[in-house]
């Protein structure tokens, strides 16, 4: 059943698929194997995020997010704000978050099960992939193409809440392209993510995480103990309190309200 739908949508969405395949081919030109031999757990990927709104005048905002994976550790790096968030998946499936303030070489460590957006962090796929499995399951597979690391799936869903499209690299568990529209006419808001770079160099990835580990860390519970530390006392204005990591979906994979979303931290 899925295959039939797949072929049907290849024709209908030829233009979008071509764009996606062009991007992926460029990223994986050396990968022609039927089986993908790249380890999705050792990976770094950069996305360009474009947010546009028709609400008043046409406005476009661009930013970047870098995804880093090293085994059971994942990091989301926001270069514009010098903040990196990281999560470690424990053997018992609990998730331990950490937040790194790159401009200050300081970090805050949390206990496993830390709350983000008012919910306990339980969905590893959301942090690992930037989009949760629960969301993907809600989408309709439009087509599938390629092989090995380049195997690509295109999903879509048009609901009263808006249009969601996802170009997905299942072998790498990686977003290739992701867009989301909400509203119509002047009320329309569009978010779009494009994969612009992927790396698999263990040394580069190790160096990134090693650098984070050099930051002076403070246990979350200790924030109140030392009011002589200017960094801790000013954490609020430094961006300690922030909105979603990706901002597009909450931990359940539901799209967030457009007017509540902020890329900056």
């Amino acid at each position, binding site marked *: 059943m899925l295959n039939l739908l797949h072929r049907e949508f290849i024709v209908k969405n030829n233009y979008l698929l071509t764009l996606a395949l062009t991007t992926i081919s460029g990223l994986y030109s050396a990968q022609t194997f039927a089986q993908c031999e790249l380890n999705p757990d050792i990976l770094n990927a950069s996305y360009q995020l474009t947010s546009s709104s028709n609400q008043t005048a046409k406005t476009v905002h661009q930013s970047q997010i870098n995804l880093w994976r090293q085994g059971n550790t994942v990091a989301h790096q926001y270069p514009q704000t010098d903040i990196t968030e990281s999560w*470690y998946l424990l053997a018992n499936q609990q998730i*331990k978050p950490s937040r790194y303030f790159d401009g200050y070489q300081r970090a805050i460590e949390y206990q496993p*099960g830390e*709350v983000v957006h*008012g919910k306990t962090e339980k969905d590893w796929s959301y942090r690992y992939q930037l989009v949760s499995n629960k969301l993907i399951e809600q989408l309709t597979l439009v087509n599938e193409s390629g092989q090995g690391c380049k195997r690509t799936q295109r999903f879509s869903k048009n609901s009263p809440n808006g249009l969601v499209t996802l170009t997905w690299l299942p072998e790498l568990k990686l977003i290739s392209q992701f867009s989301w529209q909400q509203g119509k006419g002047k009320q329309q808001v569009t978010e779009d993510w494009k994969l612009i770079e992927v790396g698999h160099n263990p040394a580069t990835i190790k160096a990134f995480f090693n650098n984070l580990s050099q930051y002076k860390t403070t246990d979350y519970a200790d*924030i*109140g103990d*030392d*009011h002589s530390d200017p960094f801790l006392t000013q954490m609020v204005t430094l961006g300690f309190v922030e909105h979603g990591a990706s901002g597009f979906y909450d931990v359940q994979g539901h799209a967030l309200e457009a007017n509540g979303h902020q890329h900056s931290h």
Partner: protein
Amino acid sequence: MKNLNLTLVAIAIMSLTACSDGDDGQNGTDGSNGATSLITQTALPLGDANCPNTGVRIDSGVDTDADGTLQASEISATEYVCAPGKTSVSSNELLTSVNNEWFLAGQQQIAKARQTWLNATASEAGANSQANNAKTASTLQVSQAANLASLKGTAKNMILFVGDGMGISTVTAARILEGQLKGKMGEEHNLSFDTFAFSGLAKTYNVDAQTPDSAGTMTAMMSGVKTDAGVIGVNEQVERGDCSTVAGTELVTALELAEIAGKSTGIISTARITHATPAATYAKSADRNWEDISDMPAEAVTAGCKDIADQLVNFEANLEARITGADVDGIDVVMGGGRRHFLPKDTAFNSPDAVSSTEGDRTDGRDLTAEWQAKYADGVYVYDQAGFDAVDANSTKRLMGLFNESHMQYEADRHNDIAGEPSVAQMTAKAIDILDNNDEGFFLMVESGRIDHGHHAGSAYNALTDTIAFSDAITKAVEMTDMSDTLIIVTADHGHVFTIAGYPKRGNPILGKVVGVGSEEPATASDGMPYTTLGYTNGRGFKNLGTETDADEGYGHDIAAGRHDLSDIDTQTAGYHQEALVPMSSETHAGEDVGIYAQGPGALLVNGTNEQSVVYHVMDFAADLTTQANAALAAN
């Protein structure tokens, strides 16, 4: 008013007494009529200035104007006849008081307190004589002085319980919560240490801070010397963060004296064992944050300062090097969290219940748990509940338990720990079981470190449930020791800006919204919204995390100080965080006094309002630590 004519009376008397035997003379000329004397009586009401209990005022004088009335100008004398005052009441009149349960309980408390005082102050020889014989004040003073002197050194064992951040309001609220969890109204309930015979207050300020931190306060309690905030085991001459200023400022702690005196020693904390409070029992550091070498500035390492974890593992050698003649065997029992400060920053050293990709923080490659085990062949190192349970207290001479990478769990969250953790009561019992194998006695410090963290996060639930767990640990200590030879002191290092407010009716859920006397509906403030009994003056403010038991979860949300509509919110859940007035990234300590509660030999020294450093001096007196330590040094 009554007027009496005394003229006629006088004439009558004269006629009865004017008799003689001579001849009668001629009648004289009648004189003119004399003036009439008058007397008036005036009844006086209750409360009169001259007769407070009522009476009569008697005015007398001559009616010079013969109008038959004694005018004020005619009064020549005034007397008062007052009713006597009421100096006693019958039992019947007092029936409503003497039969009242509070009255009876109060009387019994007085009798108990008197006996407690006599028991505590009387030496074995003089106890009965003092109780039974009336003595002059001077004799009594001499006797009491002698008795107090005889108390010195009577405490063979000492246990110091420190509830980090357990201010007076925390004790009160925890007492009520525990009572309500037991099905009582709550207010009448007592935590274990509420029933201790002696208590006093401690002024908590640091030498350089009106509102203190744990480092300065615990240093005062352990060393008898108040010092600056943020420094561990050193006096105020040190400059925080400057290693070069440490030399010469090191203080001697009660634990160190106990070690030198030959007692067994132990430290327990539900926080990291390198955290400020436990660290002040054994370490000397210019900064409380130097918990491992990666936390220290390079110049401090180069200058020779040691991190706190290093100082714990090398306590024995350090003390012997610092005090000539000291021959100690190291701290016998160490239990708490903070494994990260003892392990190298290398995944190969991760514990099975590590919660970070790399558990250890040490950048010098040292595994201090291994060093400790190499140093003490008879030592047992455990890191989880199973290991803890397997420790045989009778055969174990030395125990190190590091149960968490960082702080141990909140009591309410303990069941969520990966490998399991013992409760503070379980750790206390195990420690006493091991330490009391020494005939010379022991010193044990037990800290409930996460009461403080619960408050900082704005979670009364976590702060109070940890206080209750702490009270359970004290119960265990009381059960396992003999009050005749073990001094138990319970206190806090500082309070928090935590309030019990409004006018809730008796038995109102302490975590609930205020419901006034005679009402079933929550009271509303002037903004029309309900409010909770418990609240904070500052901090992150309102959070409603439902059944979440980890108070730190509240840090993941925007600060929400000020008022919120609580109408549809269950404020009694574990995840509810109380409202706060002043928005801050974390709720703060308070500068108020804290309670000191004591029982056992020397406990009577705990009374009145004291500098916090008095805690050390009470322990030193009760166990005569200094004398015993000096004797041991002299003998070596």
